[in-house]
């Protein structure tokens, strides 16, 4: 901190000369050579980039086993650091421990890809992801402390489930594939929802409540996002019994069942207003999926199911005292109303009068949404969603 400010305060009469002298002396004694640190920092960055560049350029010249050994050595190093300093970090610097956990997880994930590159093996995405979950989940669930590790484990679990259920369907042009039964696909796709009751259960019983809260939030976001997508898809295309597709009847029934089960568990485990609100969001998502089955193929039906789902989310936010979620829900409702009106009366856009009407509608809906949002939103409470 420059001593100019101290001189100015003294000049303004805020501090007297003795205090000014003491402050200046203290600052001189504790000054940090920022310019020096910046220069050294640039040098270190250059060295780091140079190392990465040299390794990348000679990647193929380095024998595969050597590369894998170095990779495994890095894994050992991070695991060792977590073993020796883990307790100390989790007490005083939890971010460092979480960062180390995150890097360890990513190193493990890339190790599978690295093996595949060296030995020319391939496998569908869900296999290494499922193996990664089996190996790393105990560690992360035992020691994760923040949103970083919660997001890591949830996203990889969701990707593994979705890849098995939806994305990796072996096919090549024209050759017949055997259709997979739809019910297990839906069950597997809905598995990440089970993080919600898990998070709800452990959030009050563990010292790392932030981690479990994030997991529960992520599971709810997954449920809401998935149900919204299904509602939109139901408006576009009829859901049939075609067992080749994700949106087959059996799959949706399975998803709804898991969703309702998760909601019931969350309601039983967290008997607070916030807990009940969370359960309501899950239940509304499950019911929206069931309704999407009923109204599939109808544009208006799909739109109504979507609006009903997000109205339920807004109600849950009111009940649970979640200000931001309420505002987001109102915004989404307004947006969907506008889009729905355009879908139903698409010839509005083809005439000048129609455009004026559309503009008035948009402005009207937006204004109402803002007023509702401001007037009814719960006060920013200390209840965490």
């Amino acid at each position: 901190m420059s001593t100019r400010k101290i001189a100015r305060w003294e000049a303004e009469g805020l501090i007297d000369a003795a205090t000014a002298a003491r402050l200046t002396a203290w600052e001189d004694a504790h000054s940090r050579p920022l310019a020096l640190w910046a220069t050294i920092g640039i040098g270190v960055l250059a060295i780091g980039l140079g190392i990465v560049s040299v390794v990348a350029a000679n990647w193929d010249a380095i024998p595969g086993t050597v590369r894998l050994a170095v990779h495994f050595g890095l894994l050992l190093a991070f695991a060792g650091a977590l073993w020796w300093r883990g307790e100390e970090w989790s007490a005083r610097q939890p971010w460092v421990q979480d960062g180390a956990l995150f890097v360890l997880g990513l190193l493990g994930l890339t190790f599978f890809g690295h093996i595949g590159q060296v030995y020319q093996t391939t496998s569908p995405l869900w296999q290494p992801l499922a193996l990664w979950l089996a190996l790393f989940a105990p560690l992360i669930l035992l020691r994760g402390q923040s949103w970083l590790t919660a997001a890591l484990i949830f996203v990889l679990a969701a990707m593994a489930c979705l890849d098995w259920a939806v994305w990796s369907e072996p096919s090549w042009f024209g050759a017949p594939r055997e259709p997979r039964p739809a019910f297990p696909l839906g069950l597997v796709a809905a598995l990440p929802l089970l993080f919600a009751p898990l998070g709800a259960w452990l959030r009050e019983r563990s010292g790392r409540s932030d981690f479990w809260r994030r997991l529960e939030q992520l599971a709810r976001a997954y449920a809401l996002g998935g149900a919204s997508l299904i509602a939109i898809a139901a408006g576009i295309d009829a859901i049939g019994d075609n067992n080749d597709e994700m949106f087959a009847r059996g799959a949706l029934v399975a998803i709804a069942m898991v969703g309702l089960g998760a909601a019931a568990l969350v309601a039983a485990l967290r008997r607070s207003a916030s807990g009940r609100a969370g359960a309501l969001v899950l239940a509304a998502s499950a019911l929206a999926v069931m309704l999407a089955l009923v109204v599939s193929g109808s544009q208006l039906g799909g739109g109504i199911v979507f609006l009903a789902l997000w109205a339920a989310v807004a109600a849950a936010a009111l009940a649970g005292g979640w200000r931001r979620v309420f505002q987001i829900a109102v915004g989404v409702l307004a947006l969907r109303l506008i889009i729905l009106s355009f879908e139903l009366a698409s010839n509005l856009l083809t005439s000048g009068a129609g455009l004026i009407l559309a503009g008035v509608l948009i402005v009207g809906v937006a204004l109402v949404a803002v007023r509702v949002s401001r007037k009814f939103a719960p006060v920013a409470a200390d209840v965490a969603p």
Partner: protein
Amino acid sequence: MNARLLLGAALALPLAGLGTSWAVTHVRAQQGTVWQVPVSGYDPRDLLQGHYVQYRYDWPGLDFTSSPEGFYGAPVLCLEGTAPRIAQVRVADGRPCPVPVRADLSDPGMMGPLVGGRLYVPQTAAAGLEQKLANPAQKAILRFRLREDGHLTPLELTFRAKSAAERAAEERLVRPPEPAPPPVRAN
């Protein structure tokens, strides 16, 4: 102490799992015999797909284009010959097959199973390989390792100049000999 043991176990689990995965992959990669099969470029305009070179197998004695499976390939083929030379390849059809080649259904790629394949190539070698594959005077040979269970792992692409007989055979495929003109009958 209990918490520390638990942490130790949780840390040891992924390390043990990854190490085992590496060891198992390494051992399986050493098994099997090495064979050679001629290949040709799949799409002359775009032989590279990302980091992979795509090629089409020219199994000796097997012509997919004339068989009913046609483009789709077959799930199992039978190799005949002594490693590394393949004498003959046929589609597995119930007869005993001592050297099977099984399609990898988890990685279908652009072509039917066992019709084509792809090889991971480093960036620096990619351009040279593409050029050689596109060169009509060079024949590409793929060395691959075949495990007992039929799993095929491509190892490397080598090139040799085509012999005159091979080039003549290819010319005949591309340009069939013109039919002889009908005899002029003197009337």
